[in-house]
């Protein structure tokens, strides 16, 4: 069919009045003046139009304008593809997100640069908007000044042109004034567009970089908040808790096809099956989970004990006896043994005997049994002599294989069904764990996405800005490891001399630390423990029902028993081979490690403050009374060494140098010094001082009342409980805290202030940390935690193995945290790298912007001679 237009045209031309109806339509063009709030809608509308242009293009019907606009679509598409690809490389969510932000910033800077740097100053000065858009009669949106040789001036009203002229300052006596105004505007546009082309290449990437680096913290904050909320919502909704969450399709398919393949045959090697079942393995716990599943599989796939058939034992006997006879062992001896062992008689006897050998074994492991028979039959000497021939005759492998092969059940429907159920149950576990991991990752994980990493960055950044390091100092700290602590120490010395600055700096740093403490407080940890319990309980129960006892108990484990203060009483015992407990401990220790690293910075500041105003010396004197060993001529040396070490290494307990320093003065002195550093004054002294404090601040009768209350609580529940009594009674909090922690009053005051906003008692948190440190690091090992520590190993069967030599356990490692020099140097590196980048490109960007704006000042100039030309500029 011919189109309607064709038909109409045909009719007009052939049948009707040809002149009347064929004439141009009235022009419908207009200037575009979009208010700011409509810009997003306009953007979407334009995008839709452009996309329609692509469709038209594919049909071969697009016009030049639409083809040109396709470029925008293609560019956006390509940029998104690039962002998607680069995202797949980025390790964390925030870096992934920044790729998208990058694309957005790129397009924004590309669009905004000519508007803000060129068009806006020109418009403000002259009233001419060289980025003005208009819609032509065909609905195509274009830049008004795009083609300076074809300007649709009729879209501007006389008033609008006059207004421009007034702002430009075109005199009224100019002949052809409108033309002059238009010419000036045209000139401006050509100049402005040329400037745009000249500068955009430099401005767009720089602006993109600057926008991104400005947006990163904001985006990160928002993402963080979202991740916290989102993961909490998942946990609250309890959807994760409900059963039957299937494994990924590919995994299910793989598992099913394996079962179909092996159906009706014996599964000799369980490795493949283990890896199929344990599809959600995490690197950290995989070996243990693998082992548990393997053990359970052995049981599931082997013939049950009471199914040991006589034929097999006969076969076994025949094989052994013939081979052993060849090895020179008399037949009678073998027979005797087998008879005793019950192999020829009741199977039960054999099993009883075997179990007597290995009282704890539940399953009959024939592989081990054969080995033992061999061991018993052949005495050591004979064994040596016959080992070679035996091996060549039957070979150990072949015995084992023979036994294993016999031991295995043929995979039948029932077992396959059971395996499928186990697979589903484990899938449930992994899926639930995945949800929990998401919750955990948002808060406390070793990835750039976690809140822990986020606050780490905040705290480390705050250290540098609060203490007032110059960018040059930061750079030096980042470049040379040896200088890091030196520069830091100089700054600390400078700070401690000035109480106001000191308190301000401590408060600022502590505020950020308190923010972290607030979200990783006991509530969060209790919540996590609850989630872990729910997760593990479910799987423990259902796996046990399926007969996967080892895996079940590995996941479930023995529950921790906590005392009133939250200390685990049965840690060593309960940690043995339990995923539940491992998870809890790892979670807590990760938080502890981060806290420790941060607290140590505060401690360094506090310690130097104490040294600077002599408090430490006073405390030394007190301590030395408590430890008579220190009453010797060497004491001065101890004190001196301690001070020097502290100022030099900033509490780097791991440093061999420090240890060496301590060796000189002896272990007792070392412990004493450490106690002092960690605010662990002798109890008797604290009591005396506390009583003294009470007596000073109240009247006689009340003194006795409070003192008695304090002493009673302290005796019954420990000194901390005593403090609670007197702080509750309204005694000077700072004074009491000073006694509890040994810290400087100024530090304590700053810490109290800092914790207010987040509702965190930092002093108390630090006190708990210090105490744990003393108990677990100072009192147990002379050298503290070492740099090359190993995490303690856990194995399936039980005991927590503390690795020998240079190793320290994970708690110690957590308590020591990150060494201040490493922390400071890494942070300095990041800050200084970012700073260098910002300085260089920020300055470049600023210079470019200034230059561009200044250049626009000279645009649109028309010499007087030309302005007053009679014929104008036609």
């Amino acid at each position: 069919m011919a189109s309607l237009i064709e038909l109409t045209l045909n009719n007009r031309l052939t049948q009707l009045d040809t002149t009347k109806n064929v004439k141009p339509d009235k022009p419908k063009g207009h200037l575009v003046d979009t208010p700011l709030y409509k810009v997003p809608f306009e953007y979407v509308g334009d995008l839709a139009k452009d996309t329609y242009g692509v469709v038209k293009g594919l049909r071969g019907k697009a016009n030049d304008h639409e083809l040109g606009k396709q470029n925008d679509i293609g560019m956006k598409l390509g940029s998104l593809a690039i962002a998607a690809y680069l995202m797949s490389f980025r390790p964390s969510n925030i870096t992934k997100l920044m790729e998208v932000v990058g694309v957005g910033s790129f397009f924004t800077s590309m669009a905004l640069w000519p508007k803000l740097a060129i068009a806006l100053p020109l418009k403000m000065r002259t009233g001419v908007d060289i980025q003005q858009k208009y819609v032509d009669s065909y609905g195509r949106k274009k830049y008004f000044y795009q083609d300076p040789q074809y300007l649709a001036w009729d879209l501007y009203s006389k008033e609008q042109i006059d207004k421009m002229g007034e702002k430009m300052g075109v005199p009224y006596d100019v002949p052809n004034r409108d033309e002059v105004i238009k010419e000036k505007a045209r000139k401006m546009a050509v100049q402005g567009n040329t400037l745009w082309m000249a500068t955009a290449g430099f401005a767009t990437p720089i602006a993109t970089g600057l926008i991104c680096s400005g947006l990163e913290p904001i985006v990160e904050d928002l993402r963080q908040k979202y991740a916290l909320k989102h993961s909490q919502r998942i946990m609250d909704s309890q959807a994760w808790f409900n059963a039957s969450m299937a494994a990924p399709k590919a995994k299910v398919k793989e598992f099913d096809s394996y079962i179909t393949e092996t159906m009706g045959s014996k599964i000799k090697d369980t490795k493949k099956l283990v890896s199929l079942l344990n599809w959600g393995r995490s690197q950290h716990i995989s070996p243990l989970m693998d082992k548990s599943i393997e053990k359970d599989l052995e049981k599931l796939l082997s013939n049950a004990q009471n199914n040991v058939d006589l034929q097999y034992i006969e076969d076994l006997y025949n094989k052994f006896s013939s081979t052993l006879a060849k090895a020179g062992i008399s037949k009678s001896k073998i027979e005797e043994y087998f008879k005793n062992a019950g192999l020829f008689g009741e199977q039960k006897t054999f099993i009883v005997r075997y179990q007597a050998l290995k009282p704890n074994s539940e399953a009959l492991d024939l592989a081990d049994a054969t080995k033992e028979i061999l061991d018993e039959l052949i005495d050591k000497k004979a064994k040596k002599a016959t080992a070679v021939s035996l091996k060549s005759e039957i070979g150990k492998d072949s015995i084992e294989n023979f036994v294993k092969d016999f031991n295995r059940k043929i995979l039948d429907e029932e077992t396959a069904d059971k395996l499928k159920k186990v697979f589903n149950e484990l899938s449930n576990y992994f899926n639930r764990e995945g949800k929990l991991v998401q919750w955990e990752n948002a808060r406390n994980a070793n990835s750039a996405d976690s809140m822990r990493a986020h606050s780490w960055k905040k705290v480390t950044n705050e250290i540098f800005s609060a203490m007032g390091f110059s960018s040059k100092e930061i750079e030096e700290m980042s470049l040379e490891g040896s200088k890091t602590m030196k520069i830091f120490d100089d700054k600390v010395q400078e700070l401690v001399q000035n109480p106001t600055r000191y308190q301000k700096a401590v408060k600022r740093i502590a505020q950020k630390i308190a923010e972290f403490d607030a979200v990783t407080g006991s509530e969060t940890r209790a919540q996590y423990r609850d989630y872990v319990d729910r997760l593990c309980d479910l799987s423990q129960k259902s796996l046990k029902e399926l007969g996967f006892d080892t895996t079940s108990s590995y996941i479930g484990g023995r529950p921790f028993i906590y005392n009133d203060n939250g200390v685990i009483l049965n840690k060593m015992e309960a940690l043995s081979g339990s995923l539940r407990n491992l998870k809890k401990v790892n979670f807590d220790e990760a938080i502890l490690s981060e806290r420790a690293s941060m607290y140590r910075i505060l401690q360094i500041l506090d310690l130097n403050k104490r040294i600077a105003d002599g408090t430490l010396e006073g405390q030394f004197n007190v301590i030395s009374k408590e430890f008579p060993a220190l009453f010797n001529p060497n004491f001065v040396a101890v004190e001196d060494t301690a001070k020097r070490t502290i100022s030099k290494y900033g509490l780097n307990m791991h440093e061999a140098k420090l240890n060496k320093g301590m060796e000189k003065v002896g272990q007792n002195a070392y412990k004493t010094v450490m106690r002092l550093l960690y605010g662990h004054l002798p109890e008797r002294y604290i009591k005396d001082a506390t009583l003294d404090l009470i007596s000073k601040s109240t009247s006689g009768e009340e003194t006795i009342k409070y003192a008695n209350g304090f002493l009673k609580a302290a005796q019954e529940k420990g000194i901390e409980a005593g403090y609670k009594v007197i702080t509750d009674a309204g005694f000077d909090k700072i004074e009491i805290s000073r006694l509890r922690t040994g810290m400087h009053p100024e530090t304590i005051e700053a810490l109290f202030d800092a914790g207010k906003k987040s509702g965190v008692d930092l002093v108390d948190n630090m006190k708990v940390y210090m105490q744990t440190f003393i108990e677990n690091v100072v009192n147990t090992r002379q050298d503290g935690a070492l740099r090359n520590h190993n995490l303690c190993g856990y194995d399936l069967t039980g005991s927590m193995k503390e690795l020998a030599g240079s190793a320290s356990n994970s708690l110690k490692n957590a308590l020591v945290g990150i060494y201040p020099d490493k922390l400071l140097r890494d942070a300095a590196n990041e800050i200084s790298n970012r700073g260098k980048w910002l300085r260089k490109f920020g300055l470049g960007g600023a210079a470019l912007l200034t230059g561009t704006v200044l250049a626009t000042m000279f645009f649109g100039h028309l010499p007087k001679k030309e302005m007053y030309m009679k014929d104008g500029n036609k």
Partner: protein
Amino acid sequence: MSKISAITSFKQNNTKVAETQTKSNSAYYHDEERAKREELKESKILPDTFKTKFNIATHKVANTLSVYPTKGFAGDKNSNFYEFLTMGMFPYVTGGLTFIALFNGITKHFSPKYAEKAGKYGLGMALGVIFYGIAKEVSKKLISVPVKMKTGINMDEPYRKVIDLIPRNCEEATKEQERQEKLKAEGKEDNKAFEYHTTFESVDFPRMDLYYKTGKGENRNEYFDMIAEKNGFGTNLPDSDQEVKPFIKEVVTKARTAQTLSQYLWAAVGLGIGVQKPWGKLLNIKTPKYTGDSVFKYIGKNIKTFGACFKDSCVEFFNGGVKGAINPKAKVAGRAILGLAVLTTVLGTLNAVRNPYMNRQKSTDNNNVFTNNNKVQEG
């Protein structure tokens, strides 16, 4: 005339034309007076050869760096949209270089550990930017070449447009006219400027007119006959030009759309290859002083290294990493982008070269016959 012979004869003629054009063209560039005068008069298709393209590129680059911005900053009346668009290459190149600088500019100020890390990252991004540009430009050929092979339409046929420059104002116009008259007598008028376009650059106003043969004894519609024959419109058509013009326009529009969509995807593929790990080997290249190689050996060796890096990077892009360290997300994303690029290219080309006119022509023809049974009513 058989189909083959028509095409062959066109090709032969075309080669002849190309030869003469090359001759005159080269003459123009070497300022041979006579040739210059001839050439100056009107817009003309140039032979689509490497040399022409090189010359055009040189012309554009030289002008972008000198004449166009000078005119632009002066607000010259003759500074037009073409010059603005040509200058568009400048932000492209400087933008790429600035991006490279952003990623590499301050690496050397970092401490060694960070510098190495940043250096590798920066190199990846730099190569990414370069490959982005190369892939974007080269990939257009993946569509234009098959389109030319199938339909005979050369989307990149260059032509030189002669522009008559506008005098700056009326007063000057009179003087200028006199001056040009004088110059013209000597054959040296300088009120012309050249622009280099491609004939189908605008689909609204394609320069089909340049394809007519107007010489004595020449077949006026030779080009359109060739297109008609090649695309099944038939031979010896009375108005082959009228028949094939809409077809050409449609092919060019479709192919251009396909190019626009696919080129950025290819660019993304280029960037993807640029950011792969194997390129890190380039950082280990020592100076010839260090290796003690002769210059040729040195260059040869490094070209080899570059080639090996390129090959490995392509493989890694496709596989999402090396065996054993596959990043499944990168694998999926990489293959998806590559697949999309190939798909848009292939489907876009197929869409462009099919000829819907054959069927459409027949059906419209039928409808346009006015019979008693098929009377057209108004509305």
